[in-house]
């Protein structure tokens, strides 16, 4: 009788900036192609739908060992996830994620940003990280760290105008992301400074 196919092991989640991926170790069967299928179960399914599981069609009978579960982890509740292997007619038991996953634990990285001095205008370009993200941008005139100003950017446009600068003065900017759905923020980006055109001494 065929040996039972081992269940996938080392099942874990990689979650960064609200993008969530399920990964596992490959099941090695010499000379065979092993395929995997993934299912999820939200808190609703556990509490109100007889602990039912829902297949992710994009990750049904796949040969890879990574599944993008972002679209299905779309509520701030605890999710259960499981994977099983298939080789021809042989099928493994389910391997289940140790512990539940809640997107509130996603790791948030500081935003990529580019600060631009466009003549006397202080501009910042922010990375588009998706509709769940807003940005908190802090900016100040160098040497006046106690007069920091803030702008909250709720929807990313390509360039955000922060301020009109004094001629020749240097301005600094840093930013962090905020995700309202999980009520958390990233750490701040590196500070970037730029100098406005013109030279104050020229006009004295």
């Amino acid at each position, binding site marked *: 009788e065929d040996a039972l196919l081992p269940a996938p092991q080392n099942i874990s989640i990689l979650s960064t900036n609200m993008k969530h991926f399920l990964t596992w170790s490959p099941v090695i069967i010499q000379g065979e192609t092993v395929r995997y299928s993934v299912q*999820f179960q*939200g*808190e*609703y*399914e556990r*509490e*109100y*739908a007889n602990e*039912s599981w*829902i*297949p*992710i*069609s994009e990750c049904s009978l796949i040969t890879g060992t990574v599944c993008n579960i972002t*679209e*299905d982890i*779309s*509520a*701030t*509740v605890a*999710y259960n996830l499981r994977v099983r292997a298939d080789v021809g007619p042989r099928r493994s038991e389910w391997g289940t994620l140790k512990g539940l996953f809640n997107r509130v634990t996603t790791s948030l990285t500081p935003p990529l940003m580019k600060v631009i001095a466009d003549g006397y205008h202080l501009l910042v370009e922010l990375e588009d990280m*998706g*509709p*769940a*993200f*807003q940005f908190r941008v802090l900016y100040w005139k160098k040497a006046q760290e106690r007069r920091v100003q803030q702008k909250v950017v*709720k*929807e990313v446009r390509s360039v955000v105008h922060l301020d009109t600068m004094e001629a020749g003065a240097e301005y600094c900017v840093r930013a962090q992301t905020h*995700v*309202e*759905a999980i*009520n958390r923020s990233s750490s701040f980006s590196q500070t970037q400074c730029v100098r406005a055109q013109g030279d104050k001494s020229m006009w004295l």
Partner: protein
Amino acid sequence: TAGNRIFHFGACRVSMSMTEIRAGFTAIKANIQARDPIRTLSILSYPHSLHKVKSSDRCCITHHLFNFYVDRVFKHCKTEDSYVNRKISSIANSFLSVRRKLRQCNEHNQCMCGQESTEKFKQILANYEGLNVTSAAMKSLGELDILLDWME
């Protein structure tokens, strides 16, 4: 942000991923509404629209409706279509998350129920119980945008 909205019901403040819920519903709306043969009846809007509910009763009726969808509607909406089931799961889990916040408001007496919201909800249940459970659940799910529009 396009992602999240803070809803204020008097002292009760509820943050809700409206975009995610709407995206999930929009993706399956046509499919769900096609399963509802009885177009002449409404669960949420008969005889009066939700818009007639007094603002002081908004929190209570919203709490009632989220309980209604979580406890009675979603579980009877399983389909043969895996994609539709995934979207229903997405909406159901989002509703569960919001209901928890509404329940906290209720526990802090920030979500008082007046006569009007109690009557309105009784009417909704009567409409629901007037149909067989699967038809009623599918019709209620198909009317989700009525609730979301009213909330917004």
